[in-house]
């Protein structure tokens, strides 16, 4: 490492820094400013400053609360489902070296598929007339009439959670598998000799062994699922009603559907605060975890 007082390090950072400032941070400030006006897409030049009017109006409505709740449900659903599935498959794969190469290659499929293709695949999977899911449920005798997964408010959220998790869990598997392989087998052997039960071995050897990587994974899953737009927009357009209207969709609808740029920007600021809150919570969890590990 070189401790430098010269301007060289900053010169090297300049191109990246300037681009990030121009395209991410300037818009961010701009967004905050627009959120204080009644800006409308079609008469933007005559926008007037209205203070926190947009925020007041948004907070007075149940819509925002509902949308925050939907974002939370979606994010929590995706984090839980993709993490548990990912962990389960990682444990399976770690059990044997047979088929590991093949499974690893298969896992690449959902993971490397572009998001929009994933949504279209699941659009068809869930289709009431031609969708294989209903067909299989019919064959099993679980379901008689074609159930409209995406257009019924009871199952729309569940459907997009499943579709999103299908895309995300392989990454969880591959990363947790690497963590599992780092646990020395001697620990299990010693535990077995001491008569530890399967659950005890999992609880006291496996879980601590993959703790850090799990926390990282959960953080990333939370951040990404909370800002995802493609799924909820393409599959259900936030509907039916408001069943899947997560914050990113709500923002888009206000700004470009209703052309209310001011209110859309206020929502953008709110979703930003929401993301920061999530990260903050995780940082606290992580710090507490480290303190516990040290103690």
């Amino acid at each position: 490492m070189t401790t430098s007082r010269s301007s060289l390090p900053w010169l090297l950072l300049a191109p990246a820094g300037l681009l990030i400032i121009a395209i991410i941070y300037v818009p961010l400030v701009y967004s905050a400013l627009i959120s204080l006006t009644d800006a409308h897409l079609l008469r933007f030049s005559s926008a007037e400053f209205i203070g926190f009017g947009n925020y007041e109006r948004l907070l007075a409505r149940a819509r925002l609360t509902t949308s925050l709740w939907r974002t939370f449900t979606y994010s929590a659903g995706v984090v839980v489902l993709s993490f548990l599935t990912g962990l389960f498959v990682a444990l399976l794969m770690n059990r044997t070296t047979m088929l590991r190469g093949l499974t690893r290659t298969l896992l690449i499929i959902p993971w490397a598929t572009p998001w929009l293709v994933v949504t279209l695949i699941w659009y068809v999977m869930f289709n009431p007339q031609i969708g294989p899911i209903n067909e299989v449920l019919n064959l099993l005798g679980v379901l008689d009439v074609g159930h409209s997964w995406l257009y019924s408010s009871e199952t729309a959220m569940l459907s997009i959670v499943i579709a999103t998790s299908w895309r995300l869990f392989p990454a969880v598997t591959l990363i947790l598998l690497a963590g599992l392989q780092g646990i020395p087998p001697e620990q299990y052997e010693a535990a077995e000799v001491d008569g530890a039960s399967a659950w005890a071995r999992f609880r006291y050897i496996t879980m601590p062994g993959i703790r850090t990587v799990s926390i990282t994974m959960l953080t990333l899953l939370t951040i990404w699922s909370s800002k995802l737009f493609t799924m909820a927009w393409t599959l259900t357009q936030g509907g039916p009603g408001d069943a899947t209207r997560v914050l990113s969709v709500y923002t888009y609808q206000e700004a470009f559907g209703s052309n209310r740029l001011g209110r859309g920007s206020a929502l953008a600021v709110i979703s930003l605060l929401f993301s920061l809150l999530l990260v903050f919570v995780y940082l606290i969890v992580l710090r507490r975890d480290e303190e516990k590990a040290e103690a």
Partner: protein
Amino acid sequence: MSVARPGVRYFGDGGLLQDGGRRRRFINSLGFVVVLVTTTIAIVYPFYWMVMASFMPLGYSLGNETPLILPKQFSLEPWLAIFHERPLLLWLGNTTIINVTATFVVIPVSLLASYSLNRYRFRGRMPFIVFVLLGQLLPASALIVPLFLMFRDAGLLNTTGGVVIAYITFMLPTAIWVLWGYMQGIPLYFEEAALVDGCNRFQAFRLVTLPLAMPGLAATSLFIFLDGWNHYLLAFVLAGSTDQWVISLGLFAFIGAYHTEIEQMMATSVVAAAPALVVFALLQRHLRGGLALGGMKG
């Protein structure tokens, strides 16, 4: 496919999925195979169905019972139709131009940044790292309104250049992040040795560090290029006219229509998914680590 052969002990599952006893082991291994097969089907089947549906005659899916394994008729109609009825090649071309250009800008820019963050300690280094990381946290939906207005005022709306600029910026934090990891693996003393031998800083970088960073650069470019397939909202708002569309926008147009042409939609999906899958499949061995995390982003 049996796993728990007698006399061979497997501890690797963390103990959760196995326990002693020969008979119990047989039942366990049977259950194991069932679970493994079910999981494999869950992973592969939706994708398989997409490929299969792309070879059904046009309109087949609406008129017939849903084929679960194979349709009774096969046809190349959807494939001919998508290239005739839609400017698919144009959209693929746009996608490629945008992604390749963005990658070519992102790589040198992020290389300079990650080199600086790795090799120098200076006041403001940590704040810069936080600044980059926070940039990655921001949802695209939170920035889309001001970006739309700024690009409109700058005359960049509906231009390939505008989309490229937006893509570059949203790719940068990830690229810096991934490259930084690779750079950390290159020992500093190689470069110092070159300095002792009379190279200047630039020569040391060009002759020593750069060649060593090549695999990392290759992996990062590839990852950035593929990530470009996913920035849907940016393209959706910034590229309005169909001439400027990227493939993901063309795909979405299938759903907006009055009735969805499933077979064509699936054929187009195969086209859109193919480049990413082929590249991933060929290079997966070289791309673990940073890529594993990056590949999840929406």
